[in-house]
Every structure is written in C-alpha cells, then in structure tokens.
C-alpha cells in the first residue's frame, strides 16, 4: 500500500514537472513573438489556394507568400511558411504556433474577436462556380441548392446564410470544384482569383459574372501584438509606395482580369 502511494506521488510529481516545463516553453515563445526581433517570422497558410499560395516544387509560393517574404525582409527577419488546414490558421496564430496568418484571409467580425488584422493588401470577390449548362445565373438562384465551399472560408459563412441551401464543406477548395464538376453539387462559392485558377484547369465549368460579395484580405497577427502589427503595416506601406506590392500581384494575376 505504501509503495502504491509512493509511486502515485512520483507519477504526479513527474507529470507536474512536465507540465511546468511545457508552460514555460510556451511563455518563452510568445515573449519572443511579441518582441518581433526574432530571427524567423512564421507564417501560417493553406497552400491550396492559387494564386495566393500554392505548392511549387517543395516550396510554397504565391502572392501571400511573396508579400510575406517582402515584409519579413523589411523587418530583417527570415520567413518560414507552415502549411495547414485553412480553419486551423487563426487557432495557430492565436496560440503562438505561428506569428502571422496570410492566406487570402478576409477581415470579418468573428475573426477580429480572436486575432488582430493588419491593413489590407488586396481586395477580392467571392464568386460562384457552376457547370456551363447550369440554370444558376446569380446569387439569388442559390436558394435551396447544394453549395460546396471550403470549410471556414468566407464563402462558407455566406453560404450558411443562403435560404434552404445545403452547404457541403470540403477541406480543400479544389475538392469542392471537383464535386461541382462531377455534378455532386450545384455550385461553389469561393474567392475569385483561386476560382479562375480552378476553372482554368477544369473542363465544363464557368464563373458567373455577378460576384457574390466584395471583401478585403489582410494578415492576421496575435491579438494584442500591436508591435508586430505596426511593423507589418509600415512594411506594407513601404511596399505599396515602392510599387513592389503591385509587382508581386502582377506576377501572379494577369492585368486584363481574365
């Protein structure tokens, strides 16, 4: 019996010391994150969102990746990109696992409750993708339809509000596009630029002319980390003035809007 009690105490002590270590480590990283003088800037993104971020070879490239790299350069830091599910990005930024979240992310009220956003660096639209022979011609026709979205995106949030619509939430945007192509769903609501990329590669699909909504992309930083936010805003302003920002966008999006 005594032995049992002793071993139990030992186990408790072990566990306690482990958790103590764990929390200390966490505190350390968040400290260095706040100071913004750390060597690496960790960016959380979902690299299945061309042209904003996508895999090319073993690297993640795209507008967000290039802008973040330019910002990191302005700040004298080195950029490290972490690829994850879109709905995990804010949690990652929130918990200090990443310093910034840049993933074509629109500023919404719900998101603002959990993270801070920098100034916007791009405007975007939510568009509707349908089959070429579809009877759907605009957002009003979506009521009661089967709509595919990527989980956690603004398209998901909007689709939620559509009357009687059945929303299917895919983990990846292209999977939703594939589903509409195979006739499993009626339409996809997704960001405009990725939509162009997806439709370009997929046969028999079109993007409706009438956009769903207009919105603005920004970079997410941990709530209360004003120093990093200000630094990024300054860097973004510099990039805007020098024309570098437009240069990056033009590199990935052709100017004629096609």
């Amino acid at each position: 019996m005594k032995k049992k009690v002793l071993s139990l105490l030992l186990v408790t002590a072990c566990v306690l010391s482990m958790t103590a270590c764990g929390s200390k480590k966490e505190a350390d990283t968040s400290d260095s994150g706040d100071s913004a003088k750390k060597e690496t800037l960790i960016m959380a993104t979902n690299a299945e969102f061309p042209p904003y971020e996508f895999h090319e070879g073993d690297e993640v490239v795209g507008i967000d990746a290039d802008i973040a790299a330019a910002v990191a350069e302005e700040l004298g830091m080195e950029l490290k990109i972490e690829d994850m599910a879109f709905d995990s990005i804010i949690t990652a930024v929130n918990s200090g696992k990443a310093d910034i979240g840049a993933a074509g992310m629109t500023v919404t009220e719900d998101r603002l409750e959990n993270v801070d956003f920098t100034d916007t660096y791009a405007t975007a639209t939510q568009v509707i993708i349908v089959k070429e022979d579809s009877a759907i011609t605009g957002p009003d026709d979506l009521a009661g339809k089967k709509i595919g979205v990527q989980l956690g995106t603004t398209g998901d949030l909007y689709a939620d509000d559509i009357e009687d619509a059945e929303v299917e939430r895919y983990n990846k945007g292209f999977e939703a596009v594939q589903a509409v192509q195979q006739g499993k769903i009626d339409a996809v609501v997704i960001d405009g630029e990725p939509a162009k990329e997806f439709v370009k590669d997929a046969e028999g699909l079109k993007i409706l002319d009438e956009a769903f909504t207009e919105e603005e992309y920004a970079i997410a930083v941990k709530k209360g980390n004003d120093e990093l936010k200000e630094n990024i805003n300054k860097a973004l302003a510099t990039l805007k003035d020098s024309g570098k920002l437009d240069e990056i966008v033009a590199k990935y999006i052709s100017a004629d809007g096609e």
Partner: protein
Amino acid sequence: MLQTFQDKFYQNFIEDNRWKYIAEGLGITLEVTFFAVIIGIVIGFLVAIVRSTYDKTGKLKILNVICKIYLTVIRGTPVVVQLLIIYFVIFASTDVDKVIVAIMAFGLNSGAYVSEIFRSGIMSIDNGQFEAGRSLGFNYVQTMIYIIMPQAFKNVLPALGNEFIVLLKETSVSGYIALQDLTKGGDIIRSRTYDALFPLLAVAFIYLIMVMIFTKLVNMLERRLRSSDH
C-alpha cells in the same frame, strides 16, 4: 476565469445553435458506424468461410484467390484513400448520398479485418472437434454451424469488439468527403469560433463515451456467452 469559461461555452455551443453541428454529426457518425459494422460482419463472415474452407478442404480455389486479393488491397491501403477513391473515382459522375459512400468505404474496409478475425477464430478450434462432428454423421456445413462456429464466435468476441471500436473512431475521417460527421461538426464550430479547446474536447469526450458504452455491451455479451462454459 469562470466567466471566460462560460463565455467560451456559450460561444462554442449555444450561440447560433452551434451544438446542432455536434448533435447532427453524432447522428451521422452512429448511422455510418452501425451500417458499416453490419456490412463488415457480412463480408467478413463470407470471406472467412471461403478462406477457411479452402484451408481445410482445398475447395473454392478461385473464390479464395479473389478473397486474398480483396484482403491485400483493402488492408494495404489507408481507409482515407479508399474513401476518396470511392467518392471521387468510382462514383465520379453521379450524385450519390455521401452517407452511403462512407458506409460502403468503412464497411468494405472493416470486412477485411473482420474476416481475418473470424478466420483466426475458426482455425483456433481444435481439428479434433471437426473430426468428432464428421464422425457423428454431420456433413461439413453442419459441423461448421453446430460445432465450430459457436465456439469460434466466443473466442473472437474480444477481437471483434476491438475492431468495431477502431471502426467507430475511423469514421472520423469522413470529413474528407465533406460528410458532416461528429469530427467535422467540431471542425465547423472551430472554424466559426476559432477556439480549439471546447469543440475538440467535446468531440473527444463524445467518442470516449460511445466507446465506453460499447465496451460495456461487449463485456456483457462476453459474460453471457461464458456462462455456458460451466
């Protein structure tokens, strides 16, 4: 502290009726698991019969080869990949209910494992039992039904229960085909509230409870069957 706890709880489960994602997801998970288990048992039973008949008598050669291929393919590939193949490749051009896709994928997958469990049970029964049955005038099928199977079933029950626990938890990958099961329900809440703690813990807790109830049921059945030992 308590206040933030309450706020978080409200935000994750009460606001916008978010608990419905969990409740509806639980329904889907149970539905998929229930039917997948039935399909798994049927397929597993048939495959095990074919395989052990071949082992014992050398008959059903071609069926045995087919069963072996099925086992190799299903056990050799991850269930997520099988699920995606069934949804995006096999049913490529049709709109099929995703619940049915999931039931098929998990049922087919489980069948492969269940068949090996059944087979190990059949093979575990001493050959003397088989010979005794035959010498008493039972034919092969009768010996199987009246002598071998009842004993084999009792032997494999723990392993079988284990397989169904694994199956129940494996259905958590249904979200890959945008099926809103329990895990996906938690993910949707997470994507709305950006809180990892509550949705994940709630989902984990519900799986845990389900597995505990199921384990209890299997144990009861085991005890019941064991009472005939005396």
